[in-house]
């Protein structure tokens, strides 16, 4: 073999091996650790791209719900399918701390999964402020960086024009930065994989059929199909408070939380959280929501905006006018004939035992939501 041919063969082999190794490390080492909650807090922060791919392969008639943990906790895709006459498959791809500004990163993959209908959760966080003084903001940037690094791009996606200049400085928008961001998970993933495999250490969270909310079963798992329709749910904190006057903290230890305190200072503090309040003016989050809606509509995908209620005690405690921007925006969307708006926020038939805390639905709430939403869905897609 000539020397130049040898050099070419060496280089080509090296590149192929790098690609193979990357694929193996991504799939066998990093992704399982992202899914099982060992790194990056919530498995669901990493599962949506695979979810869209799974949906496109497994369903001819999918309906996809997106939104925050409130949508994750209320949308039981299995129950809805049982009650619906549409024959559609219902998938729940919501995740905690979702914002339109974050979700727009996934929009092309969502469209590629070819849904008949996309149900978008609406709430105060849909219009909340994105500001670096807001406590969750770094998490938002981290989360966006994470999503970007999961699907690195060489050509600029159209959502980039909605990213603010300040954020563009912080986000990995160059290809190598995206690859680098993803590779940063390598060390921790290897370390924990060695620990689990060789030390026989148990996974930190249960990923079985009735698993922990932080864990997502792998797509190869037999639990996955159920999971993507009806994900693992949060424990019913409110019922626990009512029964025992305590809350179990993240270390598994109970601490005192009588109902008066829970609906007193605890609620008051929670209600002040900017995430649970619209900014009150049009902002980049709202722009991103419109971008998502426009993209879906222009791809002939039906869109339903659903206002999911909060615990009625919290809604009663809101200052007058605090969520006016939410109400005004919802009524504006109602005038858009291309989309369907279902606002359950202010309905008074949601008692507090339909909630597992201040914001998330309990099993009763889920079932009630199912009964209310299924017919609306059927009206659109049947």
């Amino acid at each position, binding site marked *: 073999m000539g020397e130049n041919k040898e050099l070419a063969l*060496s280089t080509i082999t090296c590149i192929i091996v790098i690609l193979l190794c990357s694929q193996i490390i991504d799939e066998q080492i*990093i992704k399982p650790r992202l899914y099982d909650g060992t790194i990056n807090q919530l498995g669901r922060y990493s599962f949506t791209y695979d979810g869209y791919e799974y949906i496109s392969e497994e369903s001819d008639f999918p309906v996809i719900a997106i939104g925050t943990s409130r949508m994750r906790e209320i949308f039981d895709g299995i129950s809805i399918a049982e009650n619906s006459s549409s024959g559609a498959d219902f998938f729940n791809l919501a995740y905690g701390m979702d914002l339109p500004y974050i979700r727009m990163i996934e929009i092309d993959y969502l469209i590629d999964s070819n849904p008949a209908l996309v149900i978008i959760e609406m709430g105060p966080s849909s219009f909340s402020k994105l500001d670096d003084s807001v406590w969750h903001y770094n998490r938002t940037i981290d989360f966006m960086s994470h999503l970007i690094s999961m699907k690195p791009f060489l050509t600029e996606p159209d959502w980039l024009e909605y990213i603010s200049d300040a954020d563009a400085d912080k986000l990995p928008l160059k290809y190598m930065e995206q690859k680098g961001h993803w590779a*940063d998970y390598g*060390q921790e993933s*290897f370390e924990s994989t060695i620990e689990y495999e060789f030390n026989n250490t148990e996974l930190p969270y249960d990923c079985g059929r009735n698993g922990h909310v932080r864990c997502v079963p792998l797509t190869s798992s037999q639990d996955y199909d159920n999971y993507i329709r009806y994900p693992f749910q949060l424990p019913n904190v409110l019922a626990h408070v009512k029964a025992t006057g305590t809350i179990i903290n993240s270390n598994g230890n109970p601490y005192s939380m009588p109902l008066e305190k829970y609906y007193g200072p605890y609620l008051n503090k929670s209600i002040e959280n900017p995430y649970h309040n619209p900014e009150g003016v049009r902002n980049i989050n709202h722009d991103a929501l419109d971008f998502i809606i426009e993209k879906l509509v222009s791809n002939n995908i039906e869109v339903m905006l659903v206002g999911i209620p909060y615990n009625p005690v919290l809604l009663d405690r809101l200052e007058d006018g605090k969520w006016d921007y939410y109400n005004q925006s919802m009524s504006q969307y109602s005038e858009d004939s291309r989309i369907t708006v279902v606002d359950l926020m202010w309905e008074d038939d949601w008692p507090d035992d339909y909630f597992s805390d201040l914001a998330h639905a309990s099993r009763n709430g889920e079932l009630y939501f199912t009964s209310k939403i299924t017919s609306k869905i059927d009206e659109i897609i049947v």
Partner: protein
Amino acid sequence: MRFLDFVTIDYYLFFLPAVFILTMWTTLGVRRYQISMLLIMSYLFFWLASGWHIILLMISTCLDWTAGSKIDASEDDFVRKRWLRTSLITNLGILGIFKYLDFILDSFNLISLKFTDTVELDTYGLLLPVGISFYTFQTMSYTIDIYRKKMKSYDSFLDFACYAAFFPQLVAGPIVRADHFRKEIERPLSIDSAKFRLGLTLIIYGIVKKLLIADNVAVHANSIFLEGEHLANIGLIWWGALCFGIQIYCDFSAYTDIAIGSAYLLGVKLPENFKTPYAATSPQDFWRRWHISLSTWLRDYLYIPLGGSRNGANRMIFALLMTMLLGGLWHGASWNFVLWGLVHGLLLIVHRFGKDISFIDSFFNITGRLGIVISWFITQVFVFFAWMIFRVEDKSILIPSMKTFFGYGGHFDFEEMLNCLPEIKLLTAMIVVLFILLHGTSGKLGGGKMWLTRRHPIIWGTICGVMLSLTFYLRPAETADFIYFRF
């Protein structure tokens, strides 16, 4: 702030390919154009790495070129000496001001504080120009060699400027002798695919050693010697010393590998700087394997002029101690480097005289291979002890660490050790074990890099691909600067 060096992606994506294309392809194989292009790109590299300090390099270049030419042209010993003195004083003056002035002032203030309770002198806070210790020694050796009539001066200023500024070795060596470099560039630079693959292998080896090994073990060494907690734990101190020893070797030899590899791509062969130093079985053996270009420089321009080994035992002790003390100080303006040099000087002296003691000689004759293993173990214990001194500048951490290293007042607590170490433990331990295995076997394979270069292309591609992938995924999020950039 790092602008351009061997761990920035820009070096591999833009700078090195640009230099390769501009030097090897656009110059039509004309040597003068090639050298001019190399010089321009070397100055660009230095400017991107160190900014206005490039002026110091240019001053050194012009001065040593002039001094070399004048010394070579004159038969008058007075003139020759005057030019040599001018060159040495200017070079050492620049080095002294930028590297040691603040250290001298600080030391003076320390003494002053002790006796008068006042600080007398303000320090200047001068930034150390990148690579100043390396290119100063390199250009100094040029004038000294001409003065000693060991070589003729360069005919072309362009060639000499290229020698002084050649970017692969400019910042952290190896310290190349002028005669060696001249031979490398006397014909038009050319590259064949065998050399190209060797160059690539060296670069890949360097990247892996730096990012996968050095930077990972550095996290452990730093957590032990920067935080300075639980310094009485023998396990922790030994682990810290081991990690730092591996870090400094992999960090520095990585730089050298990348430098030599980059030079290969441009058709220039630079000398080796390391030969599996942790396989050394004596202190003398260690210095034949560690930073070879510096140790031979110190031998030729310091140890021998100071008396060397042929003028009696006392003279030799003096020459050895002075050489190692100054060698230590060359690394940086700090007393721990001086102490490191002293420890190595003492080790060399003990070894020099110890090996002549009859019962020690008989012991190693009788024990054969076991004796070699014992000798290797003792050597490496002291080498790693010395690395600990090299690493720790803070004496409140260094002194207890030194005591604990030899078990004085120390204890061993594995649980405590694990609790003190950073989160990534198993992976680092695996990297350490892998390094020890590879370091031990690479000598037998005739140098891992050479072994790999000779493999079939598919094997070469597979091994390099796996190494690069692991490096990409297992490097720490933060890449540390090369340690020898500071020197």
